[in-house]
């Protein structure tokens, strides 16, 4: 038994596994590569049990922020009850949504309940490209309306651009559109295979050269519009010289550290992050501190590809996304698919 309340900067709570889109790049761990469900446990609790689960997570940690995601969180009929509960605990809340159900009424309900930020996808300035990647006709119109609704009622949103082979040349235009709609920031997330997305590896995974070009365009746009841009999915410095893009922030895996963002699924299973299929245990059965104890996180934290052994940046970069390596190649110690695909062009930093 571990005592004390671990400090966690953000808890990612997957309130539902249901979704009304079928994104080609979806990383949700409960989707199998072949379109069928994976063997990941599925389910959803009623409101009372959901709040009990959330309460236990918050009681057992010193948590300073909660992100509600899914699936599509707005499919939960009791989302307002969850938001009311979080507001009662004085916690800032972010919602990651595809925007389809974020009409004006829903936007106002969320904002009135203290949602501080929405993360909404903006995959292209072209309707057909956004809709194709979302696997849902009408997705582009819906998300633009969602952004307008949030903005109209003085809320804040960040536009999330998932860079794939199909849309990577649209980065600059997406930044422009996001700026015009009043985005607070843009997340430039290169496609990170997992869930359904791993079936589309060849179709979607961009080359390092494509990513470099897109980052250059995004960096110029970021400077031009004064719009903060962050790369939330790790981009290995051996593949892309990140120092060449001064307007863009680059992020690496925080799993196991003080800034980890553990993912809690709708039925209480805790994972190192939302990309990782590895279940640490169920929060109904064990304490949060026990679930994230160093011994249990060890295999995740210490894993890394042999290719990265001589690299001076390894402590930061960690080889990229271990979860993607595990999902695609079966081992946390394997190479992140983006690294594996582009390894021949890698220049290991000294």
């Amino acid at each position: 038994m571990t005592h004390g309340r671990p400090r966690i900067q953000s808890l990612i709570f997957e309130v539902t596994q249901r979704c009304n889109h079928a994104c080609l790049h979806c990383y949700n761990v409960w989707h199998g590569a072949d379109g069928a469900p994976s063997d990941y446990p599925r389910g959803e609790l009623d409101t009372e049990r959901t709040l009990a689960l959330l309460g236990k997570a918050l009681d057992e940690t010193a948590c300073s922020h909660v992100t509600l995601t899914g699936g599509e969180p707005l499919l939960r009929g009791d989302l307002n009850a969850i938001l009311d509960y979080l507001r009662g605990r004085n916690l800032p809340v972010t919602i990651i949504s595809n925007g389809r159900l974020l009409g004006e009424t829903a936007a106002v309900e969320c904002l009135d309940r203290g949602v501080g930020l929405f993360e909404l996808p903006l995959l292209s300035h072209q309707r057909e490209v956004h809709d194709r990647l979302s696997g849902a006709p009408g997705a582009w119109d819906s998300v633009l309306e969602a952004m307008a609704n949030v903005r109209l009622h003085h809320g804040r949103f960040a536009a999330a651009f998932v860079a794939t082979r199909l849309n990577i040349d649209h980065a600059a235009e997406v930044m422009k559109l996001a700026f015009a709609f009043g985005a607070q920031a843009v997340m430039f997330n290169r496609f990170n295979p997992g869930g359904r997305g791993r079936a589309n590896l060849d179709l979607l995974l961009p080359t390092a050269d494509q990513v470099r070009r897109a980052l250059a365009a995004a960096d110029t746009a970021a400077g031009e519009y004064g719009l903060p841009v962050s790369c939330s999915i790790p981009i290995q410095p051996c593949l892309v010289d990140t120092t060449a893009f001064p307007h863009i922030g680059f992020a690496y895996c925080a799993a196991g550290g003080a800034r980890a963002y553990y993912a809690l699924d709708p039925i209480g299973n805790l994972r190192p992050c939302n990309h990782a299929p590895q279940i640490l245990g169920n929060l109904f059965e064990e304490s949060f501190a026990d679930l994230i104890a160093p011994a249990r996180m060890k295999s995740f934290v210490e894993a890394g590809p042999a290719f990265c052994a001589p690299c001076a940046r390894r402590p930061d970069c960690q080889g990229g996304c271990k979860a993607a390596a595990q999902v695609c190649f079966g081992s946390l110690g394997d190479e992140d698919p983006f690294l594996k695909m582009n390894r021949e062009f890698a220049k290991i930093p000294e």
Partner: protein
Amino acid sequence: MPVPRRNFMQLLGISLGSMLLARCQRTGTPEPTFVMCYEAVPYTPMPGTATPTRIAALDRLRLCWLRFDELEQKTADARDNGDDGWEDNPIGAARNAEHRSALDALIIAGRITAAVGDLVQEAFSAAVYHIWRSNVPMTCYEPMMIDYAPAGAASLVRQSDTLAEIAEGATIAPDTLTKVRSALEHDLAYYALTDAEVQALFDQLLKEYQESGKEIPSFEELEFTLTPDVKAAAQFLLDVLTGK
């Protein structure tokens, strides 16, 4: 919308911390050297991390607030040097402990109540977190760093122009465009006030008070939805930092 009790103290802490980092502080010297707000000042580390306990609690408390530059610099250095443990913000944790210790001494001495002490600690912790957070890189899927400053009028005008340009070439739904334009117009109306217009607004308010024969309200009279403890905590904090 009323500001929740905790949020007010956190915002106050962040604001004070940011101001102190910019050296908007009383120097306390008889003939103060003039340090302009926002003027770049070379970093001069404060001595040692351990504050001697023989210093009076009030001074220890004040010192905690005046050492944010050290927290900022050391966090940035640790990050750049790849030092172990910087992610845990050990410097911030030490500062929080020092601040709490000084507050506890003041509570025991009857200078403030425990409730007020907790609120002041809330403000300090928020400032520490904000300064630390502003000096560490982002991590995967972490919430975005949000600029606390509102969008400036120039940026809003640029947004409006860009929206008009996009609207011409794309087939965005008219209702959606109308909503975005309305939001922009609202913000422009709010932020586009010039300094002269802001002054005119203040003058008008002052005139209205004077004409109605009322005194300008004091801090205590302002209709914040704040509890007496919060007001006491905010006032205490301001007194400590201004050396009263």
